[in-house]
């Protein structure tokens, strides 16, 4: 029983990390249909922002309030990735909205530049973020360990999903956003500034990647390729869930995360992840559009 609960907790934990990295993609890819290959690098930017804020705090503030750096780091990571995403959209993506495959390649060029920039600034060696004391350790209940930072990440994901949901479906801006994505010409006729909506939507997606980076920094050392480890799973989660549905992404991420953990019981973790990906690929043959399909009668998407 204890073992089962442990596995379940790990599954939820891994799913939440996959979900956090794919949430930004659910916005940029799901809504805007832009494949942002630099998404992993935005995760990296968030992680390095966390590291920078930590160093800043230990340089300026007295020891007593240093642990609070993490609460500054989350908005800082979001802001850094948000700004970078906004710039990227303005200079590059906006020229490629009609050429999806080309936007994929162009953003890959950006990701090469960002990776090298990270190496130039922070060095090729990985840097470490020390989790604040209140996130170290964990609760022990009946032989199971629930580490605080995992619980924190799960909570963080919950907050992020909720706020994305509120922004997308309950706010005025979300209405504009969905209007532009569904029928750009009509939305423009209604007086919506579609360029602005595009820019902010993309930036929000990137900012979410920054928050993901903030939590990724807690889990291991940060180097220039940290984002690459998450990007494949994130894309598969969005595709599996069905492009354009928030609930689909949540479900897709949970399936990939928990399936990986359960498969790990039988084999090594890297093979488990590979097998899960292969199973998802086979599943996508059955339902190429993913779990949740937005009904559409047009021949070409």
């Amino acid at each position, binding site marked *: 029983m204890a073992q089962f609960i442990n596995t379940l907790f790990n599954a939820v934990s891994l799913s939440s990390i996959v979900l956090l990295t794919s949430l930004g993609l659910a916005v940029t890819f799901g809504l805007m249909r832009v494949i942002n290959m630099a998404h992993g690098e935005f995760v990296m930017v968030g992680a390095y922002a966390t590291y920078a804020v930590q160093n800043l705090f230990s340089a300026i503030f007295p020891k007593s309030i240093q642990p609070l750096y993490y609460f500054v780091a989350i908005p800082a990571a979001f802001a850094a990735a948000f700004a970078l995403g906004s710039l990227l959209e303005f200079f590059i993506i906006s020229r490629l909205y009609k050429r999806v495959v080309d936007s994929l390649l*162009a953003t890959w060029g*950006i990701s090469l*530049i960002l*990776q090298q920039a990270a190496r*130039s600034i922070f060095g090729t060696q990985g840097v470490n973020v020390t989790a604040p004391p209140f996130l170290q350790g964990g609760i022990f209940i009946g032989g199971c360990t629930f580490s605080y930072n995992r619980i924190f990440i799960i909570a963080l994901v919950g907050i992020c999903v909720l706020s994305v949901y509120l922004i997308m479906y309950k706010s005025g801006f979300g209405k504009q956003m969905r209007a532009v994505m569904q029928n750009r010409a009509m939305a423009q006729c209604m007086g919506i500034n579609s360029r602005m909506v595009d820019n902010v939507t993309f930036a929000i997606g990137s900012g979410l990647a920054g928050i993901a980076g903030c939590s990724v920094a807690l889990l291991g050392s940060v180097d220039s390729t940290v984002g690459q480890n998450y990007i494949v799973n994130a894309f598969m989660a969005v595709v599996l869930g069905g492009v354009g549905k928030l609930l689909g992404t949540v479900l897709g991420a949970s399936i990939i995360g928990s399936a990986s953990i359960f498969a790990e019981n039988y084999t090594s973790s*890297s093979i488990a992840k590979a097998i899960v990906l*292969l199973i998802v*690929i086979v599943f996508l043959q059955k339902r*190429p559009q993913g779990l949740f399909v937005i009904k559409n009668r047009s021949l070409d998407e």
Partner: protein
Amino acid sequence: MKFLKKREDIVCFACICILLAFMPILLNYGVLSSSSIVLFLGKCIAFAIAAIGIDLIWGYTGILSLGHGLYFALGGYAMAMYLKLQSTGGKITDFMHTGGMTSLPLIWKPFLSLPAAMLLMILVPGGIAAIVGYFIFKNRVKGVYFSIISQALAWAAYSIFIALSPYTNGNVGITEIKSVFGGIKGPSNQRNMFLLFYASLLLMILIFAFCRFLAGRKFGKILVAIRDGENRAYFSGYQVSKYKTFVYVLSAILAAIGGAVFANFNGSITPSQMTISYSITMVIWVAIGGRGTIIGAVIGAFLVNLCEYSLSSGGLVEIWQYIIGAVFCITIIFFKGGITGLVSKYFPIILKKLSKQDNINKNIGKIERSRAYEHSNGS
């Protein structure tokens, strides 16, 4: 002039080949100081072969695969496994010892003989591509969805290769191998190196000729039709998915051949050739060289790699990544045709300027003729 215009790519390719063919001779007479440049050009030949495959599937058919590194590495591993067994004399390798094996595993057995290894080098990547391609294209997975799936495939294969380290030597890969013609490093083995170099050059010429032949026929036109309007191609009665699968398999085989040649020149093969970033690097060559023309892929593979080689040896490794990222980005956004696109757009203009006088004379003739035509109509 007309011949040059129509067959300019063949002329260009011939120039590249002649230049390449002279390199070993220059080395022999001491004009080139080190043999490393020839070895590197050999690797470039391997890259060019793989790039031609990428160009067929991406430039012509419009399917962007982000997982061709998988096929490249599979070809490379097949070659390297044979070569490794040659150097150990058919006994089990060190890493298998460490992995706790006492006899040669079954998968390694066929690689004892060269013909079987060559056959598997083509059959395994081709077979995998055929299975994957058949289902994916039959179910009409297209566009970016295909790209995402192909990158997931490469990533899955990469992690499996690393996890099965008793068979594949994990992260390190298969190292310390000679070429099919024996050792190629050092002055005493120069003959072997030249033999390998010319054999690879010949292979590249054959592949170029074959692909250009395919692309120039109706088959190539259908591929372009699929790229530009897939549904129209369906409605015109073509079985698009079969064409797509065929091109996918063909490009996988070309990537595998490229990988095998690469393993010969490089003396090792590692799983890093299987990664997504390596796969996209191949796409970068084609994009910069010019998609949709076979010659563009060859030019791109040589140019990008030679630039990287000369910059990296000068201690400018850091700058290189900025340059390639920026150049790639700019190429994608502004110059869809890459270098060949630019040349074919501006070369005729330059030619025209050179033969301006000639043209003016011709134009005067044309104008006079059309005037005469109008005149006769009017009256």
